[in-house]
């Protein structure tokens, strides 16, 4: 960030809005490719797939139940 002390002005600081500032070199993932599948990453993604499958089925069942698709409402 450019917050430079202006020359010959000890008590004056220039503050630059981020939109108008010079661009920074960011952490760029484009050259890295996909994330390395460590055990913890692999486990997290596998657990997530299972969770989403189960919750999707349950939510679908609940919506159908609320809509009266099973005849009488369970509650």
């Amino acid at each position, binding site marked *: 960030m450019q917050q430079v002390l*202006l020359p010959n002005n000890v*008590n004056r600081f220039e503050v630059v809005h981020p939109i108008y500032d010079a661009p920074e070199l*960011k952490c760029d993932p484009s050259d890295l490719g996909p994330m390395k599948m460590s055990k913890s990453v692999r486990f997290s993604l596998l657990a997530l797939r299972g969770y989403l499958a189960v919750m999707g089925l349950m939510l679908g069942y609940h919506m159908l139940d609320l809509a009266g698709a099973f005849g009488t409402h369970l509650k």
Partner: protein
Amino acid sequence: MLTRDRVVRLRETPVPVPGRRVARSPRARSFLTFMMVMGPGLIVMEADNDAGAVQTYTQAGAQYGLHLLWVLLLLLPICYFIQEMVARLGIATGQGHAAMIYQRFGKWWGVFSLLDLQLVNFLTLVTEFAAISLALSKMGVSPYISVPSAAVGLIALVATGSYLRWERIVITLCLIDVAWFALSAIVGPRWGAAAFNAVVPSMPKGGITTSLVFLVIAIVGTTIAPWQLFFQQSCVADKKLRFADLKWARLDTFIGACFTILVAGAMMLVGDAAFRHGLKFSDPAQMASDLAGIYGPFLRNGILLLFVNAAVLGTTAISLSSAWAYGEVKQWPHSLHKSVIEAPGFYAVYALCVFAAAGVVLIPRAPLPLIILGVQVLAGLILPSAVIFLQLLLNDRELLGERFSNKPWNNYVNWTIIVLLFALSLVLAAQVVLPNLVPAT
């Protein structure tokens, strides 16, 4: 002809350069920098107090009085920690959340996250326009005028090709929500009981019931929504925040989190007025009409207008999160700095989101209050998966290095939050599979 004196004065006069200001002390410099950085954190938090949130918080107050205020206080650190990670990731990479998932987890998860986001966002946008329709109908404006007008206005808001103009207007809309404090004061809240219930968890009369569990999950779902992760990271990237801005972005996020929780509490206090008077309502617009008989038309109009404001805020933020995410994945130009001609795909997705949701609302007899509560529950279900990606990305040392990666204490806090969110989802699942597990009422 310039005299010597005039030349000296000209040299001393700073030339105005866009985006540059001069501060005369370190404190003024810090303040100026914060004011320049502020925006994404406040907007993402306050836009989350959208129409669905007004519905959920006032309903919580109307059904359980002040008993659920403690849930809001519990959610304050949770939403701050989650959004802080998003801001950090956005500043470190200069890219949006959808782009990060696509690049680091591959096409399958990238497409899944994008579709997931678009589905929840679209349903949520329907609820926003439903709110606009409901509230303005109570004020005598036909939905066939209010809804299309709002849609056109929301598109005009972003289509100016200026990020700063959009940000300033939206921050003003956020600050209008201060009026919720005035409305909560008008209904004469029980301040002592409110303070007590905010810090001491208490059980409502009737104990744990299905409706209580669903309402708690709906509160969590509305306070921490998946679109927020995508929105803030893209917004931070679009604003081009720099590494050195991180501490100010954190402060922005923290102030936003505090403000949004306080406003949510004020909504619950307004709902509590309905609870004390035994009023039952299906939506906040009806609540406003019912309370007008006791507190007068000012309160009624105030609630209705703030309901519309909440919906407008929610719509612009949610539609932008969709448009940014789609633009990132498709690698289209996607920035509010660009004009409609420079970024046609980005603005087309935004306009499509707005017009499609507005169109659904104009279909007669759509079950809108049910959709509003259903969306919050759906968002609560999907959130754990979005937070897992965030947590994995913030531990990606290959990409972020040590400087921006999570510290061990970050991970303890975040895994605790993830476990809590999964637990709430499992409770919801248990309610579905075993509906007689807890009493219905």
